[in-house]
């Protein structure tokens, strides 16, 4: 019984993952994003001088199962290409890019451009993202989609819980296909996500925690 409850709890709280739709804060804001999981660890900090641009630094560690990890450190740029403000929704196209240095399994110049589309209402959320992750001898290009819903609408100063499901493929990686259900909590200027990657696969199952803070 305890085991079943534990599994149910793990699945319910499961998988933390991901980014929010917003890849940067508002004008004159700072944003800190972190992801901690078995297969990927990332810290990103940026400053947005306007609503269209943000500049920052990023450290990303790719740690595929059974292989030596590669850590990429660099500077990054986030740009809002287009935003649609609808009566009860918002949609965006973003471009991002980072350049830096890879160390570990692969060494040398690293670069990681990406493009993202997202659509969000106060209750629903969808995101599609493609990202190149390259360094000498390394190609971990990634494609991901996310969808989610909030359990209820919340006021601005209340915590709003979301359920988010992500499917991601990563080239030349193990596991190359990752599904992560997650619970996300958003409150004013921070969000926290907790999930489990590949929860139904004993050998790949791994918890993941994402945090974001904007001020």
């Amino acid at each position, binding site marked *: 019984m305890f085991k079943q409850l534990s599994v149910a709890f793990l699945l319910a709280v499961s998988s933390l993952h991901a980014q929010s739709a917003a890849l940067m804060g508002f004008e004159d804001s700072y944003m800190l994003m972190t992801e901690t999981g078995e297969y990927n660890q990332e810290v990103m900090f940026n400053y947005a001088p306007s609503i269209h641009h943000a500049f920052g630094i990023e450290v990303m560690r790719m740690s595929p199962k059974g292989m030596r990890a590669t850590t990429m450190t660099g500077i990054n740029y986030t740009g809002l290409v287009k935003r649609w403000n609808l009566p009860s929704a918002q949609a965006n196209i973003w471009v991002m890019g980072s350049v830096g240095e890879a160390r570990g399994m692969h060494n040398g110049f690293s670069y990681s451009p990406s493009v993202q589309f997202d659509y*969000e209402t*106060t209750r629903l959320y969808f995101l599609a993202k493609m990202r190149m992750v390259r360094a000498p001898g390394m190609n971990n290009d990634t494609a991901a989609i996310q969808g989610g819903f909030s359990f209820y609408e*919340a006021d601005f100063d209340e915590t709003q819980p979301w359920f988010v499901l992500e499917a991601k493929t990563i080239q030349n990686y193990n596991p190359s296909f990752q599904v992560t259900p997650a619970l996300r909590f958003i409150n004013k200027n921070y969000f926290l996500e907790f999930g489990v990657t590949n929860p139904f696969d004993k050998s790949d199952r791994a918890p993941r925690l994402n945090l974001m803070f904007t001020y």
Partner: protein
Amino acid sequence: MKKILFILFCLLTSPVVLAATSIKAEVNGMVCAFCAKGIEKKLNAMPEGQGAFVDLKRRIVVLELKPQQDVPLDAFTQVIKDAGYAVSKVEKVEQSIVEIKTSIKASTKGQ
């Protein structure tokens, strides 16, 4: 003389004279807490305002003006646009933020 003073007192303390003025807008695209936070920050930075209120559920933002202060509606709309959102309706109302919150609560209860 006493009568004049009495009339002046009544005028100065009447609800019409003391009523606060606020700018109230409906905002398109304001669907997340981070969006609302950005708008709130912009409004709080306006020197003519003495308080801002964001209602995420109803997509309403309010700036309560200081006494004897004014902000043209198109200037207010531009502030929201600069924050990255669109205004679908904007108006001045003779209500404080507290009164607007109370009326929202009342209308919610009535539903």
